[in-house]
């Protein structure tokens, strides 16, 4: 028994960062799922994550706000930003929305770099206390998956899938398209912000270049690999893609090749992702 505990201790000591990242990326996968589930394509999730991370870190470091309050606020601020940019971008769909959301990420990166007195500029913010433990991360992840699952099996889930399949027909069914799009964007921003804040309060450091285009594509690939048939699928996609570099460590420099290869193969041969099952929409 003591052996077991010792082993677990060692295991956690070695891999805690990775396990934490798995959970955080699971939340990010849910955030992109929330948008893609109704057929939208966003590359702004990384930007929302950044807003959450900076909000959380600044509240903790500069204002000493207690963590239980920091967390909801790091979801609220990106939600407000999503609400503001949601209005004009709602008219866009598909690749155009993606482009508009890329721009958001770039604007914010430049803002973080230049608002040096607040954001620490290019050096970022460091010395963020560790407050987000594994229980919190995985607790939130489970709650969110279950939440999406139950909502998915109601008229909201049906409306979302209907929009993904045929937006015009969904509108004719009486689905309030602008409201659903805005709601999804706001909810996804909240999740991304939450993930950003959780990561910031575990990694000790955040920087302006962590939330750019590259990271946005990584988040997108979680849903591409996992699929969006159920809320669990993108989460599993995220975990596979996060764990892969570690598992492939012996391959050294070929890691990224294999990593890329797996994504390409999955997209080509598993267009519905590695978890292709679809959530039933009736109880």
């Amino acid at each position: 028994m003591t052996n077991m505990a010792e082993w677990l201790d060692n295991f956690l000591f070695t891999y805690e960062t990775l396990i934490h990242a798995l959970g955080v990326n699971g939340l990010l996968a849910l955030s992109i799922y929330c948008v893609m589930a109704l057929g939208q394509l966003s590359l702004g999730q990384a930007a929302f994550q950044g807003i959450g991370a900076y909000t959380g870190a600044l509240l903790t470091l500069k204002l000493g706000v207690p963590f239980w309050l920091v967390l909801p606020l790091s979801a609220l601020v990106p939600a407000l930003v999503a609400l503001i940019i949601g209005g004009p971008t709602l008219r866009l769909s598909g690749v155009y929305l993606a482009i508009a959301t890329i721009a958001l990420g770039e604007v914010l990166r430049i803002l973080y770099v230049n608002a040096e007195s607040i954001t620490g500029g290019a050096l970022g913010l460091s010395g963020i206390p560790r407050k987000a433990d594994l229980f919190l991360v995985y607790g939130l992840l489970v709650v969110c998956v279950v939440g999406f699952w139950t909502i998915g099996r109601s008229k909201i889930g049906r409306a979302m899938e209907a929009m993904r399949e045929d937006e015009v027909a969904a509108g004719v069914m009486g689905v309030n398209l602008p409201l659903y799009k805005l709601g999804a964007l706001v909810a996804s921003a909240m999740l991304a912000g939450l993930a950003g804040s959780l990561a910031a309060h575990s990694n000790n450091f955040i920087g302006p270049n962590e939330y750019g285009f590259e990271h946005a594509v990584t988040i997108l690939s979680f849903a591409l690999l996992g699929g969006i048939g159920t809320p669990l699928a993108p989460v599993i996609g995220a975990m596979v893609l996060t764990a892969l570099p570690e598992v492939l460590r012996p391959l050294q420099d070929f890691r990224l090749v294999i990593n890329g290869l797996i994504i390409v193969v999955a997209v080509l041969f598993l267009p519905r992702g590695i978890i292709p099952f679809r959530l039933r929409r009736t109880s």
Partner: protein
Amino acid sequence: MSALLSARGLTMQFLGLVAVKDVDVDVTAGSVHGIIGPNGAGKTTLFNLVSGLMRPTSGTLTLEGRDITALPPYSRTRLGLARTFQNIRMFTDMTVLENVMTGMHTRLTTPGWMALLRLPGFRAEERAGKAYADELLELVGLADKADVRSGSLAYGEQRRLEIARALAARPRLLLLDEPAAGMNPAETRDLAALLRKLGHRDVTLLLVEHDMGFVMDLCDRITVLNFGSKIAEGDPREIRNDPAVIEAYLGSKIAERLARTLA
């Protein structure tokens, strides 16, 4: 009888082309109203204007006395308008039952947080919704296919499913865009029988159709469009004998010759 739907001076212009020109139509509650016309007459554009997929260049639309000209499609559904599409628009990945329940969207009113917590109120509403969906599937003859993926249905079945899905919104006015298109004579007969049954459900039908036998047989009143303008309106008998209609369909030469032989 009062007009359920009224169009006044409805006009839709696409750059140089006037697809619908100054059309006045009144659809009487409880009737089956047909819109016919040669290809390109503006029938589908008129339908898109009524269902809200397009905003007219000018003119007004009222549903039960309420101005709906500027409302988006989803608000019109709430007010009692539903439609089917000429080229079927099914949610193909969803099951037949899920399609019908999606059509019910505006009639299920429990808020999202109740669904999230799976409260009894939400469960009861879903159960009632499913029961109604089953009833509609029974009506259109798809009861045994409720759990089948809708994309795998046969063509005629998809057409009937689309009608069930539209009915799920409990519409006052149902727009059918070429419901008999691509159907064989037996399927067309079944469809006519099904649509007649809808009269008992207090649904008014407005349909666009090319199958003349079907239209003449089913409709109480027919509006004829040609090049975007209304050229005739009346009951099937009047329409059949209207010289302007015959000319629109057959061309002026044949129409003249036909008039001579009949005289």
